[in-house]
Structures are given as C-alpha cells and as structure tokens.
C-alpha cells in the first residue's frame, strides 16, 4: 500500500479528553445493589422477607380476630374461609397468631443480630487494630467462651434473668458476637498493613479515625453478610428456647412457640404444626439465600 505524508493530518492530543471517564459514577453500594438485583434467588428471598415483615403488621388487620382471645366453642377448627389458618385448641385464630409470632421472631432476630453485630465489630476491631497483649487477652477470652457450648450459657442466663423478650435477646447476643469479633479482627489485621491505612497514618490520623473511617467501612461487606446469617440463627435459637418452654410466655407468641404447641396436636390437627414450621423454614431459607447473594454482591473481587 502506498502511504503518503499528505494522507495524514496532525490531530494532537486532547489532554482534557484523555483524562475523561465515561462510566457513570457509582458508589460501592450502588454497585453492590446492581449486582444483587441480577441474582434472582436473592431477590426472591429479599422479597419474601420484606413481605413477612409487612404482613406481621398488616396481616392481623385483615381478619376480625386477635391472637389472644380464647373461643373454646371454636377450638381446633381446620383452615376455612372463616379462619384462614384454622384455630388452635383454645380457639385462637392461627392467622393472627402466625403474624403476632412473626413480629416477635423477626424482632428478636434483627435486634440480636444488631446488638451482637455492634459488639462484635467493636471488640474485633479494637483487638485487631491495637494488637499485642490486648489482642491476646481478648482472643483467649473469646476462645474460652466459644469452647463452652453456647446452649449452656444461654440457658444459664435465661434461668438467671427469667423468660421474656429482653432476656432472650440478651442471652442470644451474649453468645452471638463471638464469631463476628473473630471475623472482624482477622479483616482488620489484614487491612491495617494496607498502604491506604499507612498513608492515613503518615498524614497523622488518630486511631479512632483509622478504625471508623478506613478499617470498618472496608469490613462492612463481611459484617453485613455475617449479620444476615446471624438473624436466622437467632430466630432458630428463640424457636428452640420457646419450644422447650424457656422463651416467650403465653399469651404472647412466637413461631417457635406455635410449633411447640402444634406438636402436641400433631396427630389430630397436623396443620397446627405445619403452618408455623413452613414460616420458620421459609424465613430461614430466605435469609440464608439472601446472605449468599449479599456475599457475592459485596465482594469487590467479583466486580465486573
């Protein structure tokens, strides 16, 4: 091919243009949300959880009954147009009781996860950041607490504090933060040698600034994922405690307690056990799957 000087023209370099970024600006959270939306399983799970949470408030309004009034004439009615989920042995409407239970179960799950999340993050963060003797002391204390079966600790606390909503949350949170503290400590240990943390230190940043502005935001993904797994664990523990009679006291109710009452009538009226069990299972499954989805969405290594 014949190329001549005249065929070329000098266009120079457009400095301005070479530094331009075409991709729209996206924060970390927008990016994570975009990836979560692409995961149908996680989105269905999220949808279910949101529906359950809304229904725990809206559901009871849809029927004329409440969850605590006995109606002995109408005991053990199977599901019908009148009582959508049937009634229990004392004639209480199960639809009402399922949503009353949902409120308590979800509340326990979320509050316990939140409390253990805050405690675990702070203890793990401080332990990893300062290191040395303090780290050693905190980690050995956590080792000891983890080595004790958490059920025994929970039962002892419940026996000491009595049963009820607040004691359950305290008892579950006391054993719940341990795993997260270890997790956050590991993350902080890895992050604190990163150059951006060193850069902040050369600029004279204080320890609290380093922890709050640089270290914790970078572990937030891990923390959130671990919390989505902590919620079902707390709901399940509460269900278990109520099941053995240590949890929520009647006439208040939770899913675990409903299942416990249902088991007594299992042979004659299986729906009394099956309905609350379905709700427990669906919630657990949804939260687990959402947790999986969040882990994928929040992991920057999977960014495309």
């Amino acid at each position: 091919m014949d190329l001549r000087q005249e065929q070329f023209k000098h266009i120079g370099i457009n400095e301005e243009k070479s530094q331009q970024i075409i991709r729209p600006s996206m924060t970390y959270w927008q990016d994570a949300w975009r990836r979560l939306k692409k995961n149908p399983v996680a989105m269905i799970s999220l949808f279910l959880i949101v529906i359950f949470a809304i229904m725990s408030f809206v559901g009871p309004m849809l029927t004329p009954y409440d969850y605590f009034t006995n109606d002995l004439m109408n005991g053990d009615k199977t599901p019908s147009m009148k009582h959508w989920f049937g009634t229990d042995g004392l004639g209480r409407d199960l639809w009402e009781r399922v949503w009353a239970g949902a409120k308590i179960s979800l509340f326990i799950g979320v509050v316990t996860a939140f409390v253990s999340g805050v405690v675990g993050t702070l203890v793990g963060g401080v332990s990893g950041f300062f290191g040395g003797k303090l780290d050693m002391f905190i980690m050995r204390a956590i080792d000891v607490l983890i080595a004790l079966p958490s059920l025994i600790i929970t039962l002892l606390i419940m026996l000491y504090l009595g049963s009820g909503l607040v004691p359950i949350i305290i008892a579950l949170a006391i054993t719940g933060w341990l795993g997260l503290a270890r997790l956050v400590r590991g993350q902080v240990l890895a992050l604190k040698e990163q150059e951006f943390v060193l850069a902040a230190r050369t600029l004279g940043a204080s320890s609290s600034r380093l922890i709050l502005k640089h270290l914790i935001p970078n572990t937030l993904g891990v923390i959130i994922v671990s919390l989505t797994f902590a919620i079902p664990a707390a709901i399940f523990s509460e269900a278990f405690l109520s099941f053995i009679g240590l949890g929520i006291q009647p006439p208040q109710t939770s899913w675990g307690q409903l299942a416990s009452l249902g088991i007594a009538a299992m042979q004659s009226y299986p729906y009394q056990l099956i309905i609350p069990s379905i709700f427990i299972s669906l919630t657990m499954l949804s939260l687990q799957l959402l947790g999986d989805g969040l882990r994928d969405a929040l992991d920057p290594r999977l960014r495309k």
Partner: protein
Amino acid sequence: MAEKKTLIEVKNLKKYFNVGSGAILKAVDDISFAIKEGETLGLVGESGCGKSTTGRTIIRLYEATGGEVIYNGKNIHGLNKAEAKEFTKQAQMIFQDPYASLNPRITVGDIVGEGIDIHNLYSGKQRTEKIYELLNTVGLNKEHASRFPHEFSGGQRQRIGIARSLAIEPKFIVCDEPISALDVSIQAQVVNLLIKLQRELGLTYLFIAHDLSMVKHISDRVGVMYLGTMVEMASSEELYMNPLHPYTQALLSAIPIADPHVEKSRQRVLLEGDVPSPINPPPGCRFKARCRYAKDICSQEMPAFREISKDHFVACHIV
C-alpha cells in the same frame, strides 16, 4: 553554589523485627546518611534489602530499634504527641502500589482532602477549592473529585496519591517505589511530575526504587543497600561512572543499553547464589557469600562505611 543545609540526618538507624522463637530479622542494620534540603537521594537495592523499611522508619511508620533520625535538629523518634503531629505535616510518603494505597470506599476528593481534615487546614468552600487545585497540579481535573478510586487507571491513581501527600504542603517526601507498579510510558509521566513539583515547591525526596536508570535520572545522590546495610553512596554521576563496591558493579552491569551493538558486547558481572536470610545474619560483610573478591577478613569483620573520595562512601575491605 552555596552549601545547602541538611534537612534530615539518619544516624546508625536500626530496625529489627521479632519474627518469633527468638529469631530477629535485621531489616535495617546500622545505616547512616544525610539528605540536604531540596535534593533527591535515591535508594536502590534488590527486593528485601530494607529500602522500604528504611523509608517507613524515617517517616515514623515504624519505631526504630536503635539510632536516630534527626529532622530540624530533633530526633523524630522521641517526639511528644503534638510534635509528632507537626512532623506529619512536614514529611509525607508516596506509596508503591497505586491500587492498595487508596481507600476504595471514599471519593478521590476526600482522599486528597484527608490531610486537610486531619490538620484542620481549611473547611467548606476553601477546602473544596484546595482539593481542585491539588488535582489540577497533578494533571487531573475537578470532575474527578467525586469519583471513586476504582474508576482510575494506575497512573492516575498514583497521581491522586501524590496529590494527597501534597495537600498539607510537606517539605520532605519519601517516595517508596512510586513507579515500580506502573508501565513504562506512565513511569516517565509520574517521574517528570515529581521533578516538576520538586522545582516548583522546593521539595526534598528520598526516592526508593529498584530501577537504576530511573533513579539516575531523578536523583542527585544515590545510596545502594544490600541486606539491611548501606554498601555505597555517592553522587549519581560518580556512582554510575565509578562504582567501587562489587555489588554496585554487579547492579550497574545489569542495566540494559539501548544500542544493539553495545548490548551484544556488554560484559555482565553475574552474581551467583541467593541473598542470604536477614534473620540472624553471620558476622562480617553481608555480601561475602556472593562476592568474587571475598577474602578472610570479609567473614570476620563488618567493613566500615568510609569516605573514599569526596562524598563517595563505600563499605568494603577490598577497596
């Protein structure tokens, strides 16, 4: 030319790391040098020789095990809290990895403005103006302030790192291999930016690198490190024309020459063996195991770091 004043003086600096079960890693073992105001001191050596540790100890990221670093007449390893904060305003660092050195969760504007926030230099509109000005200085523009680090290329990120270190108007900057993670075309861009900033702002650099030709280009004087010790130091012209230490000779002979005829006939000094472990090193010269000229005395005594000719220091028994 008037004799320039010494800005920072390192005296017998030691940094040991305890690596468990009684083993001590001597990352930096008794090195001394001085940097004059407005000059660039290059520091070269192979991986693991303690260059970065030296830089980080000088900037107080690590506590020194022994020795002193004297800045403005004060030992920076004995400062109280207020003085230490004042020192962070004077001395800054540019890091090696442009991907790890920017917090992925905060915007570029906040990264550059972090020093301003920590030292309460400006606030509100003035702060924003200052950040735009800094971005402009390093060849970026103000639209970039609201972006996040992952949206930038390696070279751009490194310039953001430079803008961050300039925000508090330091006098002394430790450049810890600022160009080794960049590709060659971008390396020149960043080095030229550093040279331009030095001229305009009167900065003093400690330039750590392992690319010898780049170090020669930017440095007034060059120090060569081997296994935690300084083996030779001279002005860059002198060092490249007349290397005295066998290790420096070997290093320099490894620089490729951009001329095929010369390159073909070039004689290389090849080193044999690996760098010995810096954990509990044996007495004597650190380089003896790989040195062609090693004699008995080399394994008995550590050679002194002495001045052979004016401003040319070397630590070798042979020379």
